[in-house]
């Protein structure tokens, strides 16, 4: 069993598991932090961004000045943003049989895999993952395609040139594999390869293994996966949450008794408690708005935003913010808000029960009805007519490199009354802000990451008791900035095995058993004999039939009629040799009693020698040796067949036959 690790990002995993004869890809997350090296794509012509000076080498060589621009002391690539794909060279991705998706954030690289690697298999995911994943991809494509960029920079990627660049460009990894965003056509094609599954549904893969999605409690339709054969069980835990937010709670019990538990997608901010962060979010939002400032919340169009809107729904009246407009701007805003209301069966119990009242499960429906929350596909069109300040704007993209958020950063960045509140934990907020410096607006970092923290993981591991834990290397040591926080790492026995990008891990357990079925008629013919209480044995003669990784013992064909014909003989070649069976023996020979029996039967002058493996009984007079070992008995006598048979019969008296 092997694990091929194609991604180095612990929360955007992409691993391939080879298990029995199957090749299973676990998630295909897309690392978008690479976009932070690019200049933002402004929706409206930005004189500031378009007039940035080109970057030149220390010696004044300016051959890169078209590709690289200097902005607030940092150097950015002036090109269409590119993403860092999972490794494609480590394993031939056309051999991947299936891809299991655990949540909508972990499928963003899917079009790259399914459309460009010769992949011919099936993708399994839950319906909300697919629908919301589609929205995220659609938004991403839309954000990038609506700001066409003439040039695509590639010169800087040359290894010799990259070495000369300032950080962080100099340290960017695998830049040659960075790719531009996929198209809508590719998205559609990729999504058409997905087969929808429900929680606890058992899916057979070629008869070899069974895969089952389990609720993971993190997002709508998010799942962990059980991959098991008859005698082995691998659990894949990715992006799980034990907090009571909107999704169905995490199913922990089914993870018990795993041989291997692959653990990814823990919280990216283990020191920030989501509840405190929500409190912090509300306080800062309220404080800004009360002072007449605007609040900008860069976010994804689905996920935590639902919970934030719910918190605000409860908070705005009490904080006296009822008159403040909330805007949600995204090409998929409408679909996201509406989708959330129709996936009732994937929601937590409280929200499910609302549906039967009937009420919308999320209160943002009411916010929309009362005009407190308004949503728009983009800043163009209706939004500009309705726009009122002070206000709160939720919009993407959290990297601040594309999407409507770029416009608001340019618009509001100069006033200290305004605040940008970062709630998504995927991007370093300082790096995200770098091209907007100097910035007068307040920046608040309230990352809300509901995924498991290390305390929860340690409780989970104690409860489900896997034999081995496999996780990204980042989880096996404290965060570099807080090396004394030994509580911020996985602590389990035996220690977790860690992996890093482009590594192949041999998983530490061997398959020892395989299940074989016996056909009823064959079973009928067996005559078990109890050799000791509770253990019966029977001899079986059968044909082992193996197809689709299922093994069946079938009755042997009747012995062929003894004919002389050559053609017949050929047919009988396949038939096992069905000689008259000698009985099988079991049991052990107690040496002392055996010697006594020999003496009774007239043998004298018997000597017993102990050997490493058993005993040798020496009949000196008869010049005969009886060698008794654990699994064999040999009678060595000199051509005296009569004596041998007599001795054999004496030996057999001590053994059971069946």
């Amino acid at each position: 069993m092997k694990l091929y690790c194609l991604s180095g990002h612990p929360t955007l995993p992409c691993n391939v598991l080879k298990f029995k004869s199957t090749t299973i890809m676990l998630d295909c997350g897309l690392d978008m932090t690479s976009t932070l090296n690019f200049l933002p794509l402004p929706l409206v012509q930005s004189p500031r961004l378009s007039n940035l000076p080109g970057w030149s080498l220390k010696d004044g060589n300016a051959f890169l000045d078209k590709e690289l621009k200097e902005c607030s002391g940092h150097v950015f690539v002036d090109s269409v943003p590119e993403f860092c794909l999972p490794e494609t060279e480590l394993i031939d991705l056309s051999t991947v049989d299936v891809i299991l998706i655990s949540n909508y954030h972990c499928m963003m690289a899917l079009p790259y895999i399914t459309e460009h690697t010769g992949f011919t298999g099936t993708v399994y995911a839950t319906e909300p993952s697919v629908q919301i994943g589609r929205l995220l991809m659609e938004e991403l494509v839309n954000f990038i395609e609506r700001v066409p960029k003439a040039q695509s920079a590639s010169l800087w990627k040359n290894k010799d040139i990259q070495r000369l660049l300032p950080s962080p460009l100099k340290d960017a990894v695998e830049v040659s594999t960075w790719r531009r965003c996929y198209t809508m056509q590719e998205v559609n094609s990729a999504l058409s390869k997905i087969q929808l599954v429900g929680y606890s549904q058992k899916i057979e893969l070629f008869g070899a293994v069974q895969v089952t999605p389990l609720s993971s409690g993190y997002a709508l339709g998010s799942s962990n996966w059980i991959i098991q054969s008859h005698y082995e069980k691998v659990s894949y835990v990715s992006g799980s949450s034990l907090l009571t937010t909107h999704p169905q709670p995490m199913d922990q019990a089914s993870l018990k008794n795993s041989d291997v538990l692959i653990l990814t997608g823990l919280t990216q901010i283990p020191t920030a408690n989501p509840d405190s962060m929500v409190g912090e979010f509300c306080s800062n939002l309220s404080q800004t708005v009360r002072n007449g400032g605007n609040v900008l919340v860069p976010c994804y169009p689905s996920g935590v935003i639902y919970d934030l809107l719910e918190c605000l729904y409860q908070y705005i009246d009490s904080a006296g913010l009822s008159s403040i407009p909330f805007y949600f701007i995204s090409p998929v805003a409408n679909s996201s808000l509406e989708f959330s209301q129709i996936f009732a069966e994937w929601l937590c119990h409280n929200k499910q029960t609302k549906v039967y009242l009937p009420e919308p499960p999320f209160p943002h429906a009411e916010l929309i009805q009362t005009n407190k929350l308004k949503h728009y596909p983009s800043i163009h069109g209706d939004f500009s007519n309705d726009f009122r300040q002070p206000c709160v704007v939720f919009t993407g993209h959290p990297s601040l490199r594309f999407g409507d958020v770029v416009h608001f950063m340019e618009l509001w960045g100069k006033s200290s009354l305004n605040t940008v509140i970062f709630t998504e934990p995927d991007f370093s907020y300082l790096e995200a802000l770098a091209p907007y410096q100097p910035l007068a607006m307040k920046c608040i970092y309230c990352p809300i990451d509901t995924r498991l923290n290390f305390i929860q993981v340690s409780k989970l591991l104690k409860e489900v008791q896997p034999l081995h834990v496999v996780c990204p290397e980042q989880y096996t040591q404290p965060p570099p900035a807080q090396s004394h926080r030994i509580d911020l790492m996985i602590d389990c026995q035996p220690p977790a095995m860690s992996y890093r990008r482009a590594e192949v891990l041999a998983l530490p357990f061997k398959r020892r058993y395989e299940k074989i079925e016996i056909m009823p008629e064959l079973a009928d013919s067996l005559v078990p004999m109890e050799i000791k209480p509770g253990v019966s044995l029977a001899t079986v003669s059968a044909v082992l039939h193996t197809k689709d990784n299922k093994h069946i013992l079938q009755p042997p064909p009747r012995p062929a009629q003894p004919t002389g014909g050559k053609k017949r003989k050929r047919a009988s070649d396949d038939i096992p040799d069905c000689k008259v069976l000698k009985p099988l023996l079991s049991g052990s020979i107690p040496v002392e009693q055996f010697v006594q029996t020999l003496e009774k039967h007239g043998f004298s002058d018997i000597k017993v020698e102990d050997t490493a493996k058993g005993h040798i009984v020496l009949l000196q007079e008869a010049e005969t040796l009886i060698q008794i070992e654990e699994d064999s008995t040999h009678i060595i006598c000199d051509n005296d067949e009569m004596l041998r048979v007599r001795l054999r019969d004496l030996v057999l008296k001590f053994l059971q036959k069946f």
Partner: protein
Amino acid sequence: MDPECSRLLPALCAVLADPRQPVADDTCLEKLLDWFTAVTEAGSSLLLLQENPCLVELLFHVLKSQDLSSRILSFSLRLAGIFAAQENCFQYLQQGELLPMLFGEVGPLGGAAWTAPAVRSGWIQGLRTLAQHPSALHFLAACGAVDTIFSLQGDPSLFVASAAGQLLVHILDLAMRGPAEGRRSPQACDWPACAQKIVGHIEDSLCSTAIPQVTQALSVLTTAFGHCHGLWTQGLWVRLSPLVARLLEKDPVPASHSLVDLLLSVARSAPSSDRGLWETLAQTLSHLSPTQAGPLALGILKLQDCPQALRTQAFGILLQPLACVLEAAAQAPGPPGLLEGAAGDSMTVDTLLSSKSACVGLLCCALAHLGLLQPLPQRPSPWPQAPLLGAAVTILRLCSGSAAPTSDVGGRLCAILVGCGRVQRAALDFLGALSQGTGPQELVTQVFSVLLEYLVSPESSSMVLKKAFQATLRWLLSSPKTPGCCDLDPHTQLFLTELLPVLQKRLCSPCWEVRDSGLEFLTQMTRHWGGQAGFRQALLASEVPELTKQLLRDPESYVRASAVTATGQLSSWGLCASPECPGAQQESLLVELLHILSTDSEGFPRRAVMQVFTEWLRDGHADVAEDAERFVAGVLQAASRDLDWEVRAQGLELALVFLEQLLGQRGSHCPYAVALPETAPPGVLAQALQVLCRVQLFEFAFRALFDCDRPVAQKSCDLLLFLRAKAAPCGSPQEAGDSPNVASVEATLQRWQAGEQGQPLGYLEPGAVVALLRSVDLEGLRDTLAESSDHVEKSPQSLLQDMLAAVGVLGENEADCY
């Protein structure tokens, strides 16, 4: 006993003895017992029984009857105990062999009823009351009660078990007291048999291997040393101390909690010259685990006279956990003996690292104990203020994760403590307590920075924040004033500029508890520093006053109440007004508070408004002083309609302040001290009465006089008495009946007294008021109000009637059910 009760008693006894007529209410039986106790304390029990033979009959009947409830049986045992407490009555009951039948082995003791804990408890309480005289001791010995009490010490019911222990102590005390007490030798060979037996039992228990037995013996001894002050207790200690000391040889020490209690109890009662005791205490301190030794160490340090060496040892125990933390978190090896003589020992370190609960428990106890010790005059001296400050700061940093210890122990401590709210709260409390002392400036800076870190951190829970606010306030208020200048010192000023934005954010918190503690903090800070220029400047430059005002409309009533108090306080110091248009905002605040008073649906904000208004009136707040008459009239009008009695009572307080301002102070705050009034000069008086009539203070006060809530009525009565003393002292030339409308007013008042308060009093002339004040029997009313509201219903006669009636009523109720 009054004849009416005597008349009712036979019927009541019949009801009690009748199993078909269950007594509905347990409290009736308790009240009956209280009553009998009172009756027997006042007179002879013997006479009582002779005059009311039904009582003895009841006791006999109880013994015979099989199906009586355990409540009645328990009641009867306790009743018999009350009667038998007097020796002659005891003899009388003994003649009838009643007592052995009730308390001896033939009684309930052997029967099925004994399974009810109530019966066992009644048996013990009966004996406890009974055991008051030497005859009782003989009786106890004769009926073998002591053995039963021994076994009841391990009763499954904790109440019974604890009462059994106390009864043993009581019997021991009774046996040992008396004429021969002073001469008793510690060797105890001449101790009474009963005492010998009990002490022997305690000795056996102390030697037992069963921990519950040891615990029982120790708790009996603790009670004995805590409650009995006879000289014999010293003898007892001499006899038992070797056995107690032997407990320390066991590992682990059994029943350590009880042992600590006992040793402290002995130490408090023993003379300070008892060297053996001090040695035992020292030994115990060194044998117990750090967690167990903490309470003992604290107890020792609280003792008045105690050898210095023992005190040092005890203090060391309390300091050890903190010393370990300091040592573990030190970046580099610090100066040796940071807490002198208490460098972290390995046992404490082991405890700290053994588990999260052990670590948290030990640290919280150490912090709490040291916090309790800090303000005491007998606290150890020199008090290691600086290292303790350092330890508190370090613990807080470990809890927040901001400390970066390099040692292995430090790292593990950090992993255990990070985010632990219990330790955070304990450490903040302790840090607050340490504000009473001084510290090196560097440490004080660290204190403020860690406090700010907690106030800023989004991870601080609401309780932790509250504690952080409290500690911050204590440190701010204790910060030194710059010599020769009345303003804040530069450090504090700097801290304030960092603190106010945090407070601003906290006032916007979605968690109401946080908003509330923020407002409380602001109120306190303003109360103390409202006059400090530096504070005023910083506050006015922030958005805090504006936010506070917005919180007057908070959805949470507690927050609204705190916001009212805070804005009231800010306004008193002129900190509410914006510099551009002073006055305008102030007036709107008055209007807003009046609006809250008359419309808020919850009581807390309305009460807070009344308090603010009273304070404003008392302090002569500019806007109030401008037209105090109108202000008082408006407030009283709103308060009189309020459904909350506390608001009405506060209205009277405000009225009183107004009166005092018009007529001069009261002579004394004691409401009964109106005997020597200082009358106001007639001119002032007439004017004042006019004002009071205009603001309709009398209507308010008279209405309150007949308020259905007694505290309001009492307060009003006091107010009117004060007014009468000022305005219409006896012998004043004005006469009643001057004014034509007095009669109609009196009639109205009578209707009010009867509960019909719909009709207004109408405008009163000052003359009529004076007449009224004279004619209403205020003293009589005051006396009536002073009695508890159920004084009529509390009479024994009423109790007996109720119990009898209840039996009848019970039947009707049952019928109603169908």
